[in-house]
């Protein structure tokens, strides 16, 4: 009876145009779900075509704090432009085999964003450019010898992380030569001040024991272990979703642009969880002493595996006191301990149009080419 009345009312409403026929509940829900699915599909496809939301390339790592996502396609636009994929080991490099091919000289390049070179296409990064130059020359001279210059550079890595990257990954490729591309702050970022422990990024730090040995400080990694645990959903989104990349990019942009957002974020984080990091059990560290010990450790490690170390210094264009100190320290160590040393400061300073060598903070294609030219004689 009730149903009949409702139908009559609806009929009457339709006829006069005053009352809309009532829809079953599932219809608008279904339409919304369909619209959502179509929008997600369209956006993901469009972003993939346009290279949007592909600047997310880190995943958590229990030892290093963060590492490149293996095989991840990255479109980098924050400075310069590149559109390439990491290899299956998470290196900004072409695909490589773990086993060293015959008659091949392998070079492993360690470093931070300066070596990683996301600002230029992969083929224009100095490891690839110098590799091509060396192979071209070997071919011309009719030699069987081949060169593989492998890039282990990763943005934001400290000197300690670069060395751990060598020990945990690069060494497996049996490199004959290891190039450490030292950037300013690489040593400073390897140690941590007591007051910063509760707000530091989750990554390893180090200190010198009373005996002068390098010791790892993993307290911050341990305190934030929950953030570094694998999470199936987040890991999948990080690897595959451009929309997820856009969200993270937006949050990052807001955190550097909007003071109100930062205030709200801090309030939210404070309310969410207070992290307790174990206090430091060692005195304040001297960055130069730590850097010297780290370098000594790397050199000994490389030598013990039959390799040779070359330290390449980032150009000190405005004579930073810390970098000037470290230039002296490392060149003295190179002489005393027998490793190679290449300082890019003078060649860059003396370059005729040096503004062309850098985009903003990182090397342009011309800059990478210059590094390759300078590095080549050290690898031959």
């Amino acid at each position: 009876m009730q149903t009949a009345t409702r139908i009559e009312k609806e009929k009457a409403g339709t006829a006069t145009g005053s009352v809309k026929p009532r829809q079953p509940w599932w219809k608008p829900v279904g339409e919304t779900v369909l619209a959502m699915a179509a929008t997600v599909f369209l956006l993901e496809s469009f972003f993939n075509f346009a290279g949007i939301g592909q600047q997310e390339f880190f995943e958590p790592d229990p030892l290093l704090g963060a590492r490149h996502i293996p095989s991840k396609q990255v479109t980098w636009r924050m400075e310069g432009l590149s559109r390439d994929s990491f290899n299956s080991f998470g290196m900004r490099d072409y695909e490589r085999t773990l086993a060293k091919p015959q008659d091949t000289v392998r070079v492993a390049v360690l470093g931070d964003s300066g070596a990683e070179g996301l600002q230029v296409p992969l083929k224009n990064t100095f490891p690839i450019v110098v590799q091509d130059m060396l192979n071209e020359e070997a071919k011309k001279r009719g030699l069987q010898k081949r060169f593989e210059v492998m890039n282990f550079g990763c943005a934001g890595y400290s000197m300690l992380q670069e060395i751990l990257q060598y020990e945990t990954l690069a060494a497996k490729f049996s490199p004959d030569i290891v190039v450490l591309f030292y950037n300013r702050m690489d040593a400073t970022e390897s140690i941590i001040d007591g007051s910063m422990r509760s707000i530091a990024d989750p990554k390893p730090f180090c200190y010198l024991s009373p005996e002068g040995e390098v010791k790892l400080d993993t307290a911050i990694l341990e305190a934030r272990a929950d953030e570094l645990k694998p999470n199936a959903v987040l890991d999948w989104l990080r690897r595959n979703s451009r929309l997820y990349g856009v969200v993270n990019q937006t949050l990052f942009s807001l955190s550097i642009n909007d003071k109100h957002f930062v205030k709200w974020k801090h309030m939210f984080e404070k309310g969410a969880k207070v992290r307790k990091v174990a206090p430091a059990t060692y005195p304040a560290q001297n960055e130069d002493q730590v850097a010297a010990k780290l370098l000594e450790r790397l050199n000994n490690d490389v030598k013990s595996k039959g390799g040779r170390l070359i330290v390449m210094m980032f150009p000190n264009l405005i004579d930073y006191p810390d970098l000037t100190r470290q230039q002296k320290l490392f060149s003295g160590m190179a002489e005393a301990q027998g490793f190679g040393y290449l300082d890019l400061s003078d060649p860059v300073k003396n370059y005729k149009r040096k503004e062309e060598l850098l985009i903003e903070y990182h090397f342009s294609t011309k800059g990478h080419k210059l590094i390759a030219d300078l590095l080549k004689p050290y690898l031959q």
Partner: protein
Amino acid sequence: MLFNSFTYMLFLPAVVVLYWVMPNRFRTTLLLVASYLFYMNWKPAYGLLIFALTLVNYAIGLSLEKFAAKKKAILIGGLIFNLGCLCFFKYANFLLESLFSSLKGLSVLVSHAPADSWTSPALKIILPLGISFFTFEFIHYIVDVYRGSAAVKNFRDFALFAAFFPSQIAGPIKRFQDFTHQLLEKPVFRGENFREGMFLILQGLFKKIVLGDNMGYVVNTGFNHASRMGLVDTWIAVAGFTFQIFFDFSGYTDIGRGSALLLGYKVPENFNWPFLAANLTDFWRRWHISLSTWLRDYLFIPLGGSRVSAQRARFNTMLTMVLGGLWHGAAWHYVIWGAFHGTGLVLSKEWTDFASRHPVLSKLRPHPIWHWSGVALTMLFLFMAGILFRAETIPQALTIAHKLVIPAAGGEVTTMFLNSTLPVSLSLYLLYLAAKTLIERARQPQIHTAVSLARRYFENSIGTQVVVYTGVAFVILGFAPLHVAPFIYFQF
């Protein structure tokens, strides 16, 4: 508060929701409080300044009505007050610096005194945001009341007219008759207003963030390193600036108009396809319409307009444009920019008159080639004027103008443009404009039926609306540059 900030994205929905759930009698007060919060978010003390200006102009309006015999004196007093405030905050340092530079030059020339013995007399004045827009709205108000319009009796309504946040900082310059008329009507929530408002806000954000801000990076690189630019670089930077300012300003206007519509208010349109103008007169009818009509009504026509001798009409045009240039900013390059536009307008009018009288040219005029040549030439003129507007100094403007015609090696700006998201986002925008125009002009009834069906479906499905708005927001966020840039017209 910036329209493109996180804070505004929280502020606007909060105001809109409160506004519509609140009883009607509190709504004007709510908007007034929200507008002052919006303004004082930047510099709380300057909220008091705007309040004081509002109070004085409200009193002037009432006095003009009450003391009809002395209304001319009151009007002159009001104009002096408003222009005095504007001059103090905006032009005091410009006048002092100009005077100082002249005296310094004269002294060095006459007495050979060392130039560095002179210290700059600049005052420490922070320009209140939007003061040029506020002042023009106040002048319009007192002039119109002087001319016979009824003064606003309710102070709250007048204060809201002055401070209404969607048009507070950079216009459009409202007319109080239109605005207060809307205040009298009881606002009713309408779905179509809401949808149009959302559409305008998203369109404005796309123009501002995706196109304007990304273009800004390219343009800044060019103008900041003018000596390093090649020929193609210079053309990209110069053309880029003209489009940057359009996307920036029309984006701002769209967001403002959209925000007003969400509250049930209509704010005037400021742009009407300005780059399709076939001559400069046409351009100024389509660009920053609220300013150009203000200049016409309160400066050009009172000067005599064009119903005077040809010589005087030319002078009126020049003076209006020079003052219009100076309104934009206290710097000589703005004055020269205004004079450049004034000269262009005079020449454009002379040419149009000549062509209409000429036996051959008058026959060519209806031809589409004539029209599109006019569009191209107007565009070229705007590029040149843009150099004067954007360059920080006259020598920099000259360097850039020189580089437009002299082939030189470069490539930095070109690479930057090609590496940016602009080729994709500009194509997307052009595609959108083309689709919109084609649909509007389509003659086939099937197309109209399909569009109206899609529209009806969209109007009836709130879920789909939410999904589509979110999708467009994602596109904007995806293409957004890392750093947020303020609106260019905020500095005026």
